[in-house]
């Protein structure tokens, strides 16, 4: 078989799996409810609970304006745990044996999973954007820039999905995937510029936050949505001066490591 036809076959297999996953998402309402309600809750909680306390002086612009990109970044990173959860769930069920006994491409189960979870992230980004508009957030840039902002968020989420896929293939229990990833994701999304200005953080945390890719993806979205204060001084660190580039470098590194790793782990995990 030629390389081209093998690639086409893999893509078609992944598309079949993607379609199956999307159907399942539509038929298990709790997933959809969770992915739409929790972002709404986050936007409202931060806007009204922290909004008053944090105020404009810390962030340079209206806090709600500042906040939204942070909530977007946090939510898409959390959304990636769904990738791990669903993959671990599939591994526990007999369906994976069916897949394994078929002459399909071995990568397609994991590829189909991460691709279908882009769909979930798009839904939650859409819902969060609407909620944001309600609480006063506005996109102050061009359509193209705004699209770029969403694209960076989705690309980053896609990369994190692959990390979660690897985690799931190692731990193999949906609940453990959830608990394990929360321990990592909470600090990752909070020690960043998501909800507060990095200048308010103590030394070591500020350093971490400066180089944390969650900060750069947030910064990238903020800039592309036009939610930054034009009078504010430029960020001191390279990562936040070039947030789009820095984020994309992370995305490429993560994919380069975790795509082959996940596919290898899938082959091994499924043949126990």
């Amino acid at each position, binding site marked *: 078989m030629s390389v081209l036809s093998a690639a086409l076959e893999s893509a078609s297999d992944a598309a079949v799996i993607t379609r199956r996953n999307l*159907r399942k998402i539509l038929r298990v309402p709790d997933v959809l409810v969770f992915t739409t309600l929790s972002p709404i809750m986050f936007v409202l909680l931060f806007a009204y609970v922290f909004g008053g306390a944090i105020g404009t002086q810390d962030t340079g612009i209206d806090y709600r304006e500042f906040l939204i990109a942070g909530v977007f970044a946090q939510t898409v990173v959390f959304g990636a745990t769904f990738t791990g959860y669903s993959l671990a769930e599939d591994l526990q069920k007999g*369906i994976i044996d*069916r897949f394994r*006994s*078929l002459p*399909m491409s071995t990568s397609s189960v994991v590829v189909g999973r991460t691709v279908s979870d882009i769909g979930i992230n798009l839904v939650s980004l859409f819902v969060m954007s609407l909620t944001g508009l309600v609480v006063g957030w506005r996109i102050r840039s061009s359509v193209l820039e705004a699209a770029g902002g969403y694209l960076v968020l989705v690309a980053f989420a896609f990369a994190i999905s692959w990390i979660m896929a690897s985690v799931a293939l190692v731990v193999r229990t949906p609940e453990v995937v959830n608990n394990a990833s929360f321990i990592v994701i909470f600090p990752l999304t909070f020690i960043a510029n998501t909800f507060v200005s990095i200048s308010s953080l103590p030394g070591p945390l500020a350093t971490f936050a400066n180089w944390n890719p969650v900060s750069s993806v947030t910064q990238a979205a903020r800039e592309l949505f036009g939610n930054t204060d034009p009078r504010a001084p430029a960020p001191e660190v390279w990562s936040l001066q070039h947030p789009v580039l820095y984020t994309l470098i992370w995305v490429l590194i993560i994919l380069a490591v975790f795509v082959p790793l996940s596919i290898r782990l899938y082959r091994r995990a499924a043949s126990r």
Partner: protein
Amino acid sequence: MPTAIRATGLVKKYGAVTALDGLDLEVEEGTVLGLLGPNGAGKTTAVRVFTTLLRPDSGHAEVAGVDVLRHPKELRRRIGVSGQYAAVDEHLTGFENLDMVGRLYHLGAAASRARARELLEQFDLAHAAERVVKGWSGGMRRRLDLAGALVAQPPVLFLDEPTTGLDPRGRVGMWNVIEGLVRGGTTLLLTTQYLEEADRLADRIAVIDHGRVIALGTADELKAQVGGERIEVVLLDPARLTTARHEAAAVGIEEPGVDDRDRRVTVAVDGGTTDLVELLGRLDRAGIEVLEAGLRRPTLDDVFLALTGHHAEAETPSGDTDDPNQPDDPDDPAAGEQEGVA
């Protein structure tokens, strides 16, 4: 006749547990081999090796002329598998499940759809085609799983305990389906812990215990291997079992077996009805009351007992769930629902 399935010296260890201990097996094209053994004998492990789901530690396996380890993908085009636990997607409908499998066999969209419809019809599932599998009964799920194995009309089929957990009606239904498949010329390897099932479906039976084949032959050959007929007597009073056992030993050609729970003594004899009369006379003289007495040909359970020193199973397949309202699968909350809508 060419060999469709061949295994030589398959070994698979899980830590200290040896699941396959040098398994050798050959199945001729177009025949049915029953792999018979109790739980933990290595049946499922063997099937997982043949179907590329598991790599053996050592040994060689070939299915439809394709090396399992060297060309797994090529092999998967030529086999169908249906496992002990229905490998179906609960959130898809019956049609979507089969359609998905067809596409993953690369049959193309139109052919996959047509094949799905055809199989749903053949397996009496057409009425549930558009319903999500989650609400189906255990028996229906099993049929769908089996249909999934047949989507690409593979020349070699592996069925791992296809009737385990089914109620008697479901079991007989599954047997009829399998018999129909085999008439079409498919090579089938079937694992089972039910002797009755192997007897009914298989051309040849390989008895497997502790990961190796301990006997091989047709059902009749295996029965002949353990010698003649059996006398079975059931006593009224369990306290007299020991005495009855002594009397049976005097008449029989082998050590009698005693089943305390059923108050039953079984012994192999070579004198047919003469021995039966003789034993009944002895029991009568000893003042032992007999509830039931009979002469029968050896069953595969006797074969198993003679070969391994233990029974193949605790219960007979038809004796476990006679209540038709009983769920098929106790672990499955949906299994208790009534099958179909007719």
